[in-house]
């Protein structure tokens, strides 16, 4: 179980003043459940995920994993405790192959398992294992490889940051099936999915809406899905480069 207690985080904004990105977040995530975190862009979703992984340090608050205070643990130590994070925009590496990175993600995994998870995310192992995880891959391919790493890795808490971004519609359905089979009702695992995707949101047991650094809404998917549909109006703001803007009414 993961417990976030009064998490605050600041960053320096462009004008040099500190800006509160997270403002007193209190949340609890149970094992065996699939959670969605949604909300407007810039609301603090990715920052929260990075605080959980240890990439960002909160200015205040505590994080507990299965009762242990992990607030002061490094990224590596949290990874060893079973926390995993799939990046929204994963970095690329010149010289490291997909096989190398899968090997780092799960050193004990057999080659057959590497191949299985690549196939599961819709990539042919023969074509991909020896390729560089570099600029030659598309954004969608990188995202799928990122997902394969997390699925291959033995983790108890997996955070997926917009797994659907850049991925084609056919593959999204495949990813949904994978998420459900790997995490839903699995008593040893918890998954948190940061998403805006209308197909992913309903598969989650609970949906958390984060806006302006606070929890603006929370409920089971059955409770909140109609609420989101009715109360959260998804607009494409005119001449705003197609950016999706959510507004809580």
């Amino acid at each position, binding site marked *: 179980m993961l417990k976030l207690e009064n998490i605050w985080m600041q960053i320096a904004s462009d004008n040099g003043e500190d800006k509160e990105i997270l403002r007193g977040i209190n949340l609890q995530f149970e094992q065996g459940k699939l959670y969605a975190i949604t909300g407007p862009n810039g609301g603090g979703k990715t920052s929260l995920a990075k605080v959980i*992984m240890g*990439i960002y340090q909160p200015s205040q608050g505590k994080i507990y994993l299965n009762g242990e205070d992990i607030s002061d643990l*490094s*990224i*590596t130590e949290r*990874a*060893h405790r079973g926390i*995993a*994070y799939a*990046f929204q925009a*994963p*970095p690329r*590496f*010149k*010289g*490291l*192959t997909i096989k*190398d*990175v899968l090997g*780092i*993600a799960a050193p004990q995994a057999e080659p057959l398992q590497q191949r299985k998870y690549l196939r599961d995310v819709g990539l042919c192992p023969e074509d991909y294992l020896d390729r560089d995880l570099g600029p030659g891959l598309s954004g969608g391919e990188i995202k799928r490889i990122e997902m394969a*790493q997390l699925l291959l*890795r033995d983790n108890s808490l997996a955070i997926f940051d917009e797994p659907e971004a850049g991925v084609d519609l056919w593959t999204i359905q495949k990813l949904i099936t994978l998420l459900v089979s790997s995490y839903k009702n699995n008593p040893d695992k918890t998954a948190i999915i940061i998403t805006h995707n209308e197909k992913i949101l309903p598969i989650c047991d609970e949906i958390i809406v984060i806006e302006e650094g606070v929890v603006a809404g929370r409920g089971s998917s059955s409770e909140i899905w109609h609420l989101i549909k009715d109360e959260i109006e998804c607009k494409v703001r005119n001449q705003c480069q197609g950016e999706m803007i959510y507004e809580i009414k």
Partner: protein
Amino acid sequence: MKLNNLDMDLLHSIAELRGIPKGAVNIRRDGEAVIRQSSPNILISSTLGDKPGLLVEIKPGTRNETVHVPVILTKPGFQDKVYNTFIVGEDADATIIAGCGIHNEGHGHSQHDGIHEIIVRRGGKLKYIEKHYGEGNGKGKNVLNPTTIITVEKDASAELEMVQIKGVDDTIRKTVAHVHEKANLKIVERLLTQGVQRAESDIEIIIEGNGGAAQVLSRAVAQENSFQIFRAALIGKTSCLGHVECDAILMDKARIKSIPELMAEDAEAVLTHEAAIGKIAGEQLIKLMTLGLTEKEAVDAILEGFLR
């Protein structure tokens, strides 16, 4: 003459040899050929006069054969200079594994200057691998100055993989290539410098024939107080394709200077270059740390992949 454990360790570092390979081989230790054998298709002989060295002739039509010509220096302060000529016959397909390893326990500099001239005849195909490595606890420097002059004739292709693994204090590498009609050349260079080491690489490629193509991929890592200079000049005299790519990772207080140079003498010549020098991206380190590596392990994994 037998090879001892030290010799074999050096040979393994530069040529991945665990014993004497089958086929054509010439192992040179401290200025002398300690093992030499030709094969039916690859003949190795000595050239004498004022430029002593080897003549390696790969017969036309040879298929998938390898010749090993590594050099090792184990006498402290030994200075070695050799002129080798390699001729890859028409339509032959061969691999040459060269390279030099130095073990220096003395106060004097150990130095090997290898001047290699390579001719890949019409339709020939060559893979040339040259790895350099230095070790030892002496105060003397390990110095390696390779010169490679290659001619790739019509319809032939060559790939040169030139690697400086570690432990080389000073190096001046010169590579000159002539690429003829519909010929193809790829040079992959990977250099690691540490401490106060200095490496200079100077590559000049002249694409002389229509439809010729050349590519240079350079990967460099400079650590601590080391210094590297990379110069790649690509000259397109005809309708041709050429590309130079230099990627370098800079660490600590090291310095790298990259000087790409393009010269097109034909309107149909397409020559490009790209260069990037910088430290390891923080997001790359963080990514690998989220997979369970420590920061040091992440740096090592990134460098190992980058220089592989």
